[in-house]
């Protein structure tokens, strides 16, 4: 990553990027906003909003219905958006399913498997296993717990090491010939850990398990090629990657998507409907029942274009520089504990930390008074907090529009917070 820096870093002009995000000029409690809650949700550049507005004002109609001009234009824009998203992830057009959010995408896969007839490769029952990890976001954990409850399958999980990594010591025991699904997070939203996809995929292949990779925190921050990753399913969401909320995406290998039973029934997902029963459209329509998220798809494609224009490797390099500066600064502050990997090795920009003697809520509230936005709480990953013996954490997560000066503002802010709460 750093090898790319000298030449490519000059192409990445953070001040020019910032001009595309008007919200970054806001003043909060008398201080310029420092937005470090990007792992929760990112902001949108004007280009994304302009694209959505232009579409809504000039071309909007329902899609895949009717023959009038607007209907044709809207359908073309929607399907073009699918192609753009597919290209962004290294996938084919027909392999991208638009969902409401990432959560719906995990549920789509879990419920589809639950709907499979006995004997199907997707069906689960007693004796079968689903494997996840202890660092999953609730959205990639609870749907699998529910699937196991419905089918009698057993849920297993990789534990975590003290330094915030997956404990792979029992890889062969946890992923075994009974494992039907291995679903895990690419980049942890709480710890920042980037997991060794290759090691896990290799083991899953040995035993014939299907692999779902949660990319909600990787698609926004690093170059992603789903084919090179070698997984079967990949999930991401628009609002964490400069796009709108209300749209997520599931990538699946086409042969799998076409063989999977539907999740939700309704319009658009059918082939022939009779009173006695129906047949279903091939993927991706099979999984897009009802009027889809149309304008949001157009906006999401604009977000992908924006990121591609900057170059995802440049985005990753910029964030790595910020994350390195933050980790180094936190190390120098006494009473600050990073929860997760404390080096840049295989880690992303989400950095969770505990301030000794100050509850994360109070840390977050005090930082807000200084115009600094961080996330506090369990980050929808309560088992991770429990694993590290904290009720919650404060988390700073940078993105392409953050600057080194902003990281320094956070570090100075933390010193002030410590001084205030010590008094």
């Amino acid at each position, binding site marked *: 990553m750093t090898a790319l820096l000298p030449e490519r870093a000059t192409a990445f002009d953070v001040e020019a990027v910032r001009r595309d995000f008007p919200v970054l000029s806001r003043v909060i409690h008398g201080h310029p906003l420092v937005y470090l809650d990007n792992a929760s949700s990112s902001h949108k550049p004007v280009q994304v909003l302009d694209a959505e507005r232009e579409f809504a004002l000039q071309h909007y109609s329902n899609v895949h219905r009717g023959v009038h001009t607007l209907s044709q234009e809207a359908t073309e824009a929607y399907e073009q958006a699918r192609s753009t998203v597919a290209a962004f992830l290294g996938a084919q057009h027909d392999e991208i399913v638009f969902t409401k959010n990432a959560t719906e995408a995990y549920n789509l896969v879990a419920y589809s498997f639950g709907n499979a007839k006995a004997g199907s490769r997707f069906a689960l029952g007693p004796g079968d296993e689903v494997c996840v990890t202890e660092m999953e976001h609730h959205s990639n954990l609870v749907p699998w717990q529910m699937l196991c409850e419905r089918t009698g399958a057993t849920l297993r999980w990789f534990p975590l090491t003290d330094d915030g990594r997956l404990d792979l010591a029992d890889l062969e025991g946890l992923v075994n010939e009974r494992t039907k699904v291995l679903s895990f997070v690419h980049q942890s939203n709480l710890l920042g850990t980037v997991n060794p996809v290759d090691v896990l995929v290799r083991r899953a292949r040995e035993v014939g398990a299907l692999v779902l990779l949660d990319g909600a925190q990787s698609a926004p921050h690093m170059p992603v090629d789903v084919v090179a990753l070698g997984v079967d399913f990949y999930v991401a969401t628009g609002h964490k990657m400069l796009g709108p909320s209300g749209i997520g995406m599931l990538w699946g290998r086409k042969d799998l998507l076409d063989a999977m039973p539907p999740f939700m029934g309704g319009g658009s997902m059918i082939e022939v409907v009779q009173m006695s029963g129906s047949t279903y459209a091939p993927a991706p329509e099979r999984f897009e029942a009802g009027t889809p998220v149309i304008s949001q798809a157009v906006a999401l494609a604009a977000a992908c274009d924006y990121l591609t224009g900057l170059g995802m490797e440049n985005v990753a390099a910029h964030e790595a520089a910020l994350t390195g500066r933050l980790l180094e600064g936190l190390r120098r502050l006494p009473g600050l504990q990073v929860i997760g990997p404390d080096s840049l090795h295989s880690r992303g920009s989400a950095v969770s930390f505990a301030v000794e003697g100050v*509850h994360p809520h*109070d840390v977050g509230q005090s930082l807000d*008074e*200084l115009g600094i936005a961080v996330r506090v709480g369990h980050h929808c990953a309560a088992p991770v907090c429990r694993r590290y013996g904290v*009720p*919650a954490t404060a988390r700073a997560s940078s993105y392409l529009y953050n600057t080194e000066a902003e990281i320094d503002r956070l570090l100075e802010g933390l010193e002030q917070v410590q001084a205030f709460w010590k008094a």
Partner: protein
Amino acid sequence: MSVTSPESLYQEIILDHYRNPHHRGLRDPYDVEVHHVNPTCGDEVTLRVQVKDGPSGRVVQDVSYDGEGCSISQASTSVMTDLVIGQPVDAALGKAEAFLELMQSRGTLEPDEDVLEDGIAFAGVSRYPARVKCALLGWMAWKDATAQAVAQDSRENQ
């Protein structure tokens, strides 16, 4: 530092109760123990209540608790115990209502110091919707435990 500005959340009274909480630690005897959590942030409180018959109705004999949470939730629970211990149950429930009303006021209510005493320091919290549930955690646990204790008491007296 701006977090100490008068408009801000962290009043001196709140910080005092946070650093030196009153009536903290679980005690015996008690009638009912409850465990309440704030699922969005992970704060939790375990709280015990003992009610006793007094000359003019039931009285809150003791409230004890243990918990983990932010300054607002911990201080609010401490203030609550000061306000309700030794009070007739009805009067204590009245204070809980007054505190709830204050928390839902979004900064528009002038609290009555005669009723809420140190609780008036939380008036500013009502301007921070994300923190209102912190301030209410201990109070809600107390109301729940007290309602159970009173119901239990009524059954035993039947």
